[in-house]
């Protein structure tokens, strides 16, 4: 067992981690064993058609896409909070959610590409508006993370990053509405859930995917937030140590000076 005092873990976060692992095992069971592949019989030809087993990739791709929105919207809200209140909590939350969101966004692009090869017959389609806007979102937040690693005065860096996040997040409505606004410029289907064209175990497994990947997101956010908090605390601690050292030096100098003056007066 990890000592609580030397890690970002706590009994609560360990319980969350354990629940997440159990949830992931359950999701895999439903996604691979208990649900049927997407197979339909053609009314005219009688042949089987559909996505077959490739549909099992959607149980992770769709929840991760939605959680990418959640992560980047959290980043935007926290960035706005930082610009208004200038508190460290807002800045650490913004940075943590941007990093977790970028990991999620990268996985959304990769798993979407893997799903697209058998179902669409292509790994990538440059003309697809949703793919393009999602790739731009990933690049914008990769830029955000690179900006945060560029050395600068902390408050200035946090302010710049907050502005970038607030601009980057404007891409999310474009991604989300692209299938309606540019119906003939995307291979993506329109919303299945909004039109309720999903039912039974398929629907349940997709919902379970939202819950389980939500837990993964919460666990990652919790630990990443604590790392960010430690970074700030460490920076503050180092400055405090430096100040204390300089004070000690000055006091020594004062004493030496005093001794010197006393000695000079003799």
């Amino acid at each position, binding site marked *: 067992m990890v000592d609580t005092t030397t890690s970002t873990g706590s009994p609560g976060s360990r319980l969350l981690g354990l629940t997440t692992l159990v949830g992931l095992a359950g999701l895999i069971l439903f996604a691979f064993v208990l649900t049927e592949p997407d197979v339909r019989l053609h009314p005219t030809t009688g042949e089987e058609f559909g996505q077959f087993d490739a549909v099992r990739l959607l149980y992770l791709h769709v929840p991760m896409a939605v959680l990418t929105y959640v992560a980047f919207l959290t980043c935007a809200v926290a960035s706005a909070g930082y610009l208004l209140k200038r508190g*460290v909590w807002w800045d650490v939350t913004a940075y943590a959610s941007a990093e977790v969101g970028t990991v999620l966004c990268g996985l959304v692009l990769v798993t979407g590409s893997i799903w697209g090869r058998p179902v669409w017959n292509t790994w990538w389609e440059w003309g697809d508006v949703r793919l393009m806007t999602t790739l731009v979102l990933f690049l914008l937040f990769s830029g955000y993370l*690179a*900006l945060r690693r560029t050395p600068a005065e902390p408050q200035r860096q946090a302010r710049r990053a907050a502005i970038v996040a607030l601009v980057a997040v404007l891409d999310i409505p474009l991604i989300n509405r692209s299938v309606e606004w540019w119906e003939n410029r995307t291979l993506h289907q329109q919303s*299945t859930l909004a039109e309720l064209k999903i039912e039974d175990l398929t629907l349940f497994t997709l919902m379970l995917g939202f819950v389980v990947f939500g837990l993964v997101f919460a666990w990652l956010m919790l630990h990443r937030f604590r790392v960010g908090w430690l970074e700030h605390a460490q*920076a503050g601690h180092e400055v405090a140590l430096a100040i204390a050292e300089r004070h000690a030096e*000055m006091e020594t100098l004062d004493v030496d000076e005093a001794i010197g003056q006393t000695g000079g007066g003799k």
Partner: protein
Amino acid sequence: MADPVDEESGEAGPLDLTPQASRPQRRARNPFSVVVLLLVVAGIVFVLLRTLGDASLFFYEVDEAVSVRAELGSERFRVVGTPLPGLVETRLDGQAAVVFTLCVADVLADVAHLGDPAELFQPGVPVVLQGFWVSGEPPGIGSLPSAAEDGWYLRTDHMVVKHDNDYRGADAELESCGVGS
């Protein structure tokens, strides 16, 4: 709960040392981060240029593609439509090809697609093809049950399947089109 770094605090006694701690950092530049930042900017520019360039390959529904056939000439474009039942495997200019008919509502267009069709290609499941109009009739067109046979066909070489949003198994509906739809 107190912030670990008190931004407002000026508690430095007779010495204000905070600027000294940050000055060297401001001058420093992490080359890795700067390179990543430049790569990201270059990536965004590339994606935008690529997308804008690709946008010239406009998506037309079959009925639109038929109505603007004269203006399109031999220009390459994307066409979206639903394949009708019936597929002929043949050869075109020495290459393997498949011939079938696309539709939107009651408008039909014959297609000669070079190469294999997509793995999940099925009648009733819309496809997006890339190619251009050719005057004439593709080989094997007479074997199709409901071909357009209007003296033109689409010669395409890129096919992707536009999957629908229906996951209801037996209750799922298919796109219906063709004469009498």
